[in-house]
């Protein structure tokens, strides 16, 4: 957009004009990004998270508002799962920032969704009844159709895991093989679950790589294999299977 560059080159010769433009852009960036990052969350919910009033969030989301405080922005950054960056910039960098100013470029990933930290993004299990901790193993997440950082009722997670387990049993099915085993499941899964029934019916071994599942929470496990200590044979004929070629 050479036209923009040409115009700003001329306009910015006036000091008042260039600072008005740059400061207006800063205010607009803050307002637009807060609104974008808030997404579906209500202003009241965001206000509750940062300890302010809904009207305060409404003001911050107005491009004409300039009395924001760094401390408030710091709290907002934390509420969004992001870091706050403040830096001094050259005027020339405004041009690409203006050209790329749209909702998509204002969006940021929360820490839990940041691929750089995906493997480490494990939280302690929630103590709240009926909730489970976010799970980090990308294979598990993909397998169960979940996203890192999302919370699910424990029953829903078990159901998803078992549906996945049934699929795996079916994909591993080999005629004439008896035996049953679950890898890495402890404490939660009972022998009467649909997956075990399906495996039993198919007379095959069940190998479910849903890793370490303890007390309702799935934990990270970088390896798809679970340790022998975590293995809980449910059948004396336990025979782990290799997926057929």
């Amino acid at each position, binding site marked *: 957009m050479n036209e923009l560059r040409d115009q700003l080159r001329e306009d910015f010769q006036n000091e008042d*004009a260039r600072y*008005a433009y740059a400061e207006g852009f800063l205010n607009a960036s803050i*307002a637009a990004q807060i609104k974008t990052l808030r997404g579906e969350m209500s202003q009241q919910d965001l206000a509750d998270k940062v300890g302010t009033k809904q009207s305060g969030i409404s003001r911050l989301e107005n491009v*004409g*508002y300039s009395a924001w405080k760094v401390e408030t922005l710091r709290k907002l950054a934390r509420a969004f799962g992001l870091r706050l960056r403040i830096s001094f910039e050259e005027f020339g960098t405004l041009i690409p920032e*203006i*050209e790329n100013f749209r909702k998509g470029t204002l969006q940021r990933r929360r820490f839990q969704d940041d691929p750089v930290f995906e493997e480490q993004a494990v939280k302690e299990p929630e103590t709240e009844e009926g909730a489970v901790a976010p799970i980090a193993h990308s294979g598990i997440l993909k397998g169960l159709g979940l996203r890192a950082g999302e919370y699910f009722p424990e029953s829903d997670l078990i159901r998803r895991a078992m549906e996945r387990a049934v699929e795996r049993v079916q994909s591993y099915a080999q005629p004439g093989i008896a035996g049953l085993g679950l890898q890495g499941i402890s404490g939660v899964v009972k022998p009467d679950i649909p997956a075990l029934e399906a495996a039993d019916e198919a007379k095959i071994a069940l190998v479910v790589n849903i890793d370490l599942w303890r007390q309702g929470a799935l934990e990270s496990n970088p390896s798809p294999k679970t340790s022998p200590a975590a293995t809980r044979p449910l059948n004396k004929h336990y025979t782990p299977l290799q997926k057929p070629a």
Partner: protein
Amino acid sequence: MDEQDGTFTNVIRRWLDEENIALSQRSRLQLQIHLIESGGPEVVPGCIVPVNEEGFCAMNIVAKGQTPITPVFCYGPFTDSEITLLTGAPIQNGLLRAQDVLPIARHNLEILIANPGRRRRERIT
């Protein structure tokens, strides 16, 4: 896009001149126009105020210690991805008087629809 009058004077620039609007305020208005061009009206929350059910809106450009400026515009009228600044509205005693200038906005829009060539994409600084 700014509507031009019969003498091919940019009506928005003329209004800014008549109101004696400082360059810094024009610069703020120009910024909002650039941002809307880049990301659409949703990227300038709080800046756009609906004026009536006909679809006329106003931009609200405010800055501490400066005269607020409020150009009235409409979406279109020729494509979905454009807006057209039609006239300016005064603010008196802190109240936007966009209703007062709606007849002018309507008139300018009618002229523009009849004469699309009267519209130009021009800077207002």
